[in-house]
């Protein structure tokens, strides 16, 4: 057993267990904390796939900013009300399970039955090179200049919009 397989098993187990715990907890704050663990182990899985930049982004954005945001939103709402909401509509749970099963089956199909696309290199060295931050930077500033600036405008409009909608007092 190589180190990668050991790491994969550890991360996959942590990911699975924390995911199940996140869904089954009653207290939303504890759920959110398990989600952090889940995000962290996902970052580990990305690393075993040599996708370093995505792993870093996962930790900084998801486990960092989005989780902070989640927790503030949970603290902002009244959780008692939400609990009653699920009791009124138990069919929502069935719907959620159905969607989860559907997505799971689709991914299982992709992994088990579909052939890898042509033009994809299966060499490890190539995948390590493609995943480095330098390589992503080079692509970003030659080929993907327009999407990069578009992301700038996306963030700008999101910032202005968020303030317009969430500010306590306008003007």
């Amino acid at each position, binding site marked *: 057993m190589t180190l990668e397989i050991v790491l994969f098993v550890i991360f996959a187990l942590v990911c699975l267990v924390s995911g199940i715990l996140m869904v089954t907890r009653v207290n939303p704050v504890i759920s959110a904390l398990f989600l952090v663990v889940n995000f962290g182990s996902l970052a580990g899985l990305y690393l075993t796939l040599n996708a370093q930049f995505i792993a870093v982004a996962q930790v900084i954005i998801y486990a960092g900013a989005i989780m902070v945001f989640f927790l503030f939103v949970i603290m902002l709402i009244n959780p008692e009300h939400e609990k009653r909401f699920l009791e009124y509509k138990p069919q929502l749970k069935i719907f959620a399970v159905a969607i989860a099963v559907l997505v799971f089956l689709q991914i299982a199909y992709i992994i088990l039955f579909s052939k890898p696309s042509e033009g994809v290199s299966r060499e490890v060295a190539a995948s390590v090179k493609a995943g480095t931050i330098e390589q992503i930077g080079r692509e970003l500033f030659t080929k993907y200049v*327009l999407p990069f*600036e*578009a992301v700038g405008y*996306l963030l700008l409009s999101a910032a202005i919009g968020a303030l*317009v*909608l969430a500010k306590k007092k306008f*003007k």
Partner: protein
Amino acid sequence: MLNNIQEFYNILPLIIIGGLILVSLIIEMYSESSEKILPWLSIIGFLFVGIYSLVEVGRTSIVLQNMLATGGVVNIFWLIFNITAAIVCLLSINYIKKYGAYYGEYYIIIQTSVLGMMLMAGAKDLIVIFLGLEVMSISFYVLAGFNRNRSSANEASLKYFLLGAFATGFLVYGIALIYGKATTTSIDAISLNFSALSGNVLFLTGVLLFLIGFSFKIAAFPFHMWVPDVYQGSPTTVAGLFSTAGKAAGFSALIVTFAALFGGPHGHLFTPYLSAIAVFSMLFGSIVAIMQTDIKRMLAYSSIAHAGYMLIGLASGNIDGVAGIIFYLAAYSFMNLAAFGIVSILEGKEETNLDLDSYAGLGTRSPFIAGLFALIMFALAGIPPFAGFFGKYYVFIAAIKSDLTWLAMVGILSSMISVYFYLRLVVIMYFKSSETEDKVSYTASEIIAVVIAVVFVIILGLAPGSFIDLVTKFL
């Protein structure tokens, strides 16, 4: 990045709108009366970009490492977006004061939404489509809830956001599946390789999810549930923007992704899906609109029906259909904008005067506005000689050319149903007496905006051939 100075001139519209956003933001920061300066700045910017796009329409090119196309149909779409946005700004000057959203940010967010639409229309890569869509959608979510003191506006914004984010999820999932098989996001490369890819189940699932994601954005039948609530809750001028430029942007992205397949062996691959949602959108929109008593909800259902007519052009899978959609979009944008403009003029403070019955006696109270509104209703119903008739005519002809005569027949049937609720409003305006004798008060800017839109409707109705010739030249 840019190979020569000509390419710079070709993407100048995008640069101008991008710069306009920054300048407006600085004005908003340092000026005390930004809400008086920004509408006029926006209108000048939009008009300049629109006219510039029309002048430069012949310079087709693909710039920025195959990410963006300019010239031709793209510039025609840019023209539609910018003129529409300029009219919306002109209408808003007085309206948002009445509505309680009198802030400069309103115009900045309209500018960012137009930037997103322009990216969608020019995209040559699925990533650019996605980013353009997000810039546009996020701006729209904010615009829908601009007055935070109104619970209806909050509801509209939240509903639009949740369902829009859900639809974007479909879209991204679809793009991921397409990328997984094609190993590229370039639209040209995927269309070239389509024969080899089209046998793959996952690839086709991806394309279908992509279509479903856009069905949300253009408000087609099974994904239409957000439309009435969002149009009703958001500011009327903004609802006008959603239903015209927003819909045009969704169709422009569908056209840039699927037009390359039309005329080829796979042109009719998605016809079953597209014609099914077209039929249901038309019939559902027209029939449910009859039961509405609120004018904004009625226009919302009519907007679902019109999405159905446009989808006929896409389902027919030929170049005539695409030209027909573009004409239809231009015509529909001006008709619907004029309709929403008049609704915004008549709307009172706190969402009053939105009932169909509040239009009673308008023919005597304000003959000019009633006349304009009647004209627009005739145009929306598709009665010749207005632009609405020719839009339907072109897409139906395209469907008949592709042996989809039954689809055209359903379209005609649905138009006949829709005549009822459009003309009912005209009847209410002229033949029902009202309780009040109040004259309708309006400002010059509002009435000029409506008149401009109506003039475009008449021009497009009198000379539809020249617009269609201009479009077909570049297809």
